[in-house]
């Protein structure tokens, strides 16, 4: 195993592509506020599972992709996702031994923090109406985490991503 390099890069890239697709998928009007932060969730999974491969820099580049796709100020999501990846790397040893529901709580905090950053910066560059609905996506994301964890773990083992 030691002479074998990292494998399955395409699986990681593909998972982010799917996350982008889901993030752009049009939602019905009433469900717009509940859109989970797909990209952040997938990033969190890979950071916790493979911290030696997916880290701050990956988070930054993935976030830049989100900025391009959503047309927000370049660097906005990049910064928030990079910070989130950094915190996840700090916590990854602890997170791995948590049961899924406890991980979900941590995900709530991490995604919430990244959303807070996005919100603060968006407020600086242009006004946003203030409403508490803004926090719904992080809660939805936390609820989705246990299922996403199972799916992505299966994919990681099936395609032997190391």
């Amino acid at each position: 195993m030691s002479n074998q390099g990292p494998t399955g890069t395409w699986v990681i890239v593909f998972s982010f592509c799917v996350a982008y697709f889901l993030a752009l998928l049009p939602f019905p009007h009433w469900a717009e506020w509940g859109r989970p932060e797909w990209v952040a969730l997938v990033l969190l999974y890979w950071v916790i599972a493979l911290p030696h491969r997916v880290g701050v820099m990956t988070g930054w580049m993935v976030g830049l992709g989100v900025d391009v796709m959503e047309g927000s100020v370049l660097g906005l999501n990049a910064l928030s996702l990079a910070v989130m990846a950094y915190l996840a790397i700090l916590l990854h040893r602890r997170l791995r031994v948590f049961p899924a529901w406890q991980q979900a709580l941590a995900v709530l905090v991490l995604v919430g923090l990244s959303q807070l950053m996005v919100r603060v910066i968006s407020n600086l560059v242009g006004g946003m109406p203030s409403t508490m609905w803004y926090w719904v996506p992080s809660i939805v994301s936390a609820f989705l985490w246990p299922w996403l964890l199972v799916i992505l773990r299966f994919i990681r083992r099936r395609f032997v991503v190391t």
Partner: protein
Amino acid sequence: MVVVAVLSLGLMFVDHRTQYLSPVRYYAAYLATPFQYAANVPADVSAWVYDTFSSRESLLTENAKLQARAVLLQRRVQKLAALSAENIRLRELLNSSSLVNDNVTVAEIIGVAPDPFRHEIIINKGAKNGVFMGLPVLDAQGLMGQVIEVGPFVSRALLISDSSHAIPVQINRNGVRAIAVGGGSLDLLVLTHVPDTADVVEGDILVSSGLGLRFPRGYPVGVVTRVQHDPGESFAIVEAKPSAHLDRSRHVLLVFKEQKQLDWDDLN
């Protein structure tokens, strides 16, 4: 981490304050376009399924309805042709610039901004189709917004209801001018700085005034829904509802304005 943070902050500053990153965005759109199209596929498929499997009767009813509508519209167009000819004659008499027919292209909405705070749509026409920054976007009912970001094949338009958007309007009945600012909700425009004495009543139709040279003149923008005079406020509180179906339209019109000034030679 620090490097990344500084890099992002620098990037945000440059992107927000200057135009240096516009070419970067333009070429990055090549990467983003496939995702934007892909995200539209489920909606397309459901529309296709609906069209394919809808019953013959419902199609027949729809056809009859559309035909009746076409006749109605045709009649209106006949009248309009005479009226616009008369209008041009009168304008020539008044020695003002002639109103040239606007050049219109149809585009399709292939996406909306996933962030509910930002009222933006993505349309399937880009720089390769002649779209440019600030191009007005309309639907069949009225003005929708303007193009704010142009990619090679798709572009992004800001809707008039976005809280960072404002459009100069005029009341159709008496020509009172105002600025309609987006209310942050898809069915709300707010008219700012309207004097308490201004003649505005509920039901007034707002049309674009063409001031500011961004939007063409005379397209419907909204209908006044609420006028309130609060003695404690310096201005009247006036709210309006956009005429365009901001959340329902599928096809939009891009208006390429050709404003031709009448020369002295033309007149003599």
